[in-house]
């Protein structure tokens, strides 16, 4: 049997959308993660998209992906008996992960003070919008609010539009990643010392570093970076930099970058396709030979030559635009990369599904779902560990699928379980 990095760790998963990626990451590395769902249904199961577009508790693709390798029990921790059962379970657990409003678990007696009284070395990872302390700790949050307050949103989009949100609840994803990393760090500390602790993860803080140079630019130069849209910081047409339409989609080009082939290599390719038009003539050819980042950043330093240069660059851009429009995106992407020209395909989800590199590396994973009578295809590992690999061992659970085995482990008799079920505790 392959060993795992976390097969000695049990995690109780109370996380909502904000933190649930963390428990998925830890489950996929081998931890025994028990998802605790409220008896009236886990709200995560209502989040689309759904398998075959059938909205049902056992068909949410979002839930599927975020709950691989987990077991599920249903338990109402707000009821006294439910709380008692949770405490029994906590005594067997190494980690609890949650994303309630700060103070909520304390109000049930299940905050860090309560849990560490039951299990002194427990790690409680709390993943919330703004963290456990500070004046905004009780502010309500959503993914959008985190992304906005972090500063990263102010950099995305066209000036005329609303600042752009990033697709796919990336606030929750980043908070989940840092929540998993923080949990691992606390586990390493516990391995060393036997000491547990609370890990405090603020979505706003995890996201802030995504604003790239904006923070340090203000700190050093008192300049406030803002969104510059598709043209970027140099608002002129530059051949081979930016988004280009192709026959069947788009590419993103960044020619002339250090480490890559020079523009003349692109010109050779255009020549071989018979699509270079007049780029081999002056003044275009001289411009092409000198076209690199240093030239571009120096453009503004010679204002007397700027107008003429913009005209030549604009013409080259137009020729390059026509070249791209005559090719397919995959030909441009793979053809350019094989010559060390920096072009990336603007992948659609379909392109991602058909990506030959991901296929070669068998990245996608097919997981049988007996209740659907079908196999569901999942994204694969974010990382590959040679000795303790990421793996999908178990499909995501149905609601309360593991009630019987978990509660019998806690010494609850079948009759009691039936009664708890009838009383809405389980």
């Amino acid at each position, binding site marked *: 049997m392959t060993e795992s990095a976390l097969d000695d760790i049990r995690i109780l998963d109370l996380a909502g959308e904000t933190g649930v990626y963390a428990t998925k990451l830890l489950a996929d590395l081998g931890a025994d993660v028990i998802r605790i769902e409220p008896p009236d249904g886990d709200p995560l199961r209502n989040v689309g998209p759904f398998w075959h577009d059938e909205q049902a508790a056992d068909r949410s693709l979002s839930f599927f992906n975020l709950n691989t390798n987990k077991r599920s029990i249903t338990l109402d921790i707000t009821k006294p008996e439910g709380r008692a059962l949770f405490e029994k379970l906590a005594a067997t657990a190494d980690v609890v992960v949650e994303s309630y409003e700060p103070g909520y678990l304390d109000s049930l007696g299940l905050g860090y003070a309560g849990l560490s009284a039951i299990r002194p070395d427990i790690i409680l990872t709390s993943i919330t919008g703004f963290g456990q302390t500070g004046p905004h700790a009780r502010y309500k949050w*959503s993914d959008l609010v985190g992304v906005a307050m972090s500063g990263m949103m102010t950099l995305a989009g066209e000036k005329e539009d609303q600042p752009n949100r990033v697709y796919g609840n990336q606030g929750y994803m980043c908070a989940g990643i840092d929540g998993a990393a923080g949990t691992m760090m606390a586990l390493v500390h516990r391995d060393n010392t036997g000491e547990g602790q609370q890990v405090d993860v603020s979505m706003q803080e995890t996201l802030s570093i995504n604003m790239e*140079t904006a923070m340090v630019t203000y700190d050093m130069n008192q300049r406030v970076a803002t969104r510059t849209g598709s043209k970027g910081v140099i608002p002129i047409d530059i051949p081979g930099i930016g988004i280009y339409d192709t026959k069947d989609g788009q590419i993103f080009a960044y020619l002339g970058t250090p480490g890559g082939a020079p523009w003349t290599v692109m010109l050779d390719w255009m020549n071989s396709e018979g699509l270079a038009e007049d780029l081999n003539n002056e003044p275009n050819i001289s411009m092409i030979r000198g076209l690199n980042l240093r030239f571009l950043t120096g453009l503004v330093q010679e204002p007397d030559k700027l107008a003429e240069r913009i005209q030549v660059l604009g013409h080259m851009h137009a020729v390059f635009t026509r070249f791209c429009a005559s090719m397919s995106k995959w030909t441009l992407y793979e053809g350019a990369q094989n010559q060390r020209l920096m072009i990336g395909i603007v992948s659609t989800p379909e392109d991602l599904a058909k990506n030959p*590199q991901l296929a070669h590396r068998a990245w996608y994973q097919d997981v049988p779902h007996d209740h659907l009578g079908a196999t569901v295809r999942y994204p694969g590992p974010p990382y590959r560990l040679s000795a303790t690999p990421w793996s999908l061992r178990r499909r995501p659970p149905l609601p309360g699928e593991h009630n019987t085995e978990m509660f019998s482990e806690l010494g609850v008799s079948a009759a009691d379980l039936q009664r708890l079920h009838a009383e809405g505790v389980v």
Partner: protein
Amino acid sequence: MTKLPLEGIKVADFSWFGAGPICAENLGRYGATVVRVESEAHVDGLRGVQPFATGKTGYNVSGFFNNYNAGKLDLTLNLNTELGTQLGRKLVEWCDIFITNHTNRMVDRWGLAYDELVKINPTIIAAYQPMQGLDGPHKDFFGFGAVLNAITGYNELSGYPNRPPMGLGTNYPDYVINPGHTLIAILAAMRYRKRTGKGQRIELAQLESSVAPLAPAVMDYMANGRVQTRAGNRLPHASPHGAFRCKDNTWQDAPEDRWIAFGIFDEAQWRGLVDAMGDPSWAADAKFASLDTRKQHEDSLEAHITEWTREHTAEELMVLLQSKGVPAGIVQNARDILNADAHLKARGYYQYLDHPETGRSAYDGAPFVLTKTPGTLRSPAPLLGQDNEYVCKEILGLTDEEIADALVEQALF
């Protein structure tokens, strides 16, 4: 004083730009000794990228570089020389954790592939962050965050449908997605090593790590054949959902646009919003009565809301909406983040460090707070090669004479 979790752990940081250095910085933040390996023959590109401390120039004053390298020792080692490679191998022998995000070609050329490293250090944990993986038809494809944004789907899926897929204005996966995933893997490998004494190789293909958080779009295609594309700030299950323009600010004598971001996911939040707006008559219209109808009339809904938000500051609206139970936040810019955000200040998120060339500068804080063993950056970003002598003597065990030779041979360069 409590020991930090990684005290005594030794890290050889052979990375550059964002994804590698940020991961190594976080190992140092939690107690590890990190030696950052650089070379003047192959300078980290970020040392040459703005912003620079006002009025300063040179390799040591880039805020971009400095922000990802605080707390590290800095060793310049020219791996293109024989002696430089030898010294690099000594560092590999010393370390517990090795990390690089150099291309596969450079890793091979410098003899830093895992098979080579385990010969020197059998229990090493070696983390590689190739752009597309260590094997496969695209293994030598190159790029950086902005290109990766396109290849991995962030560009196609983010922004407005009537705009080109321009992306997020940043090299997004470089900052959390790739360094964060790598950190998890390294810490997992450390636990395994502690239990078994065995090291291992970690391979984080930046392509794979960056597509993983886009699962809903990928799975929607796989299961349903639907090809999602960008839809602006709107969501299928919330309405309104977006950023709404507020009263302009004046900053450096120019108007500055200001925005409040919020989304309405249920009827209680909708009532909170209507209440905050002062119960305007338009909001009572049947076409805004439910999520479904609001979705149908979203253009009109957003126009009405903007008439209201335009009359108020983003700060006022955040406080008001929060008081009504609506999750709302200012679309903060860097000045807000550093100067105005009282919450981040109270939590002490940003760490200010005195740097010999830039002066006192701000650094991003810990991505997570361990309440009993909080991480900290123990020193500002290093000057290029500032610890050559210390590392050579104390870590690599070189004599003064050997150090002099290494200098002459331009190995410490």
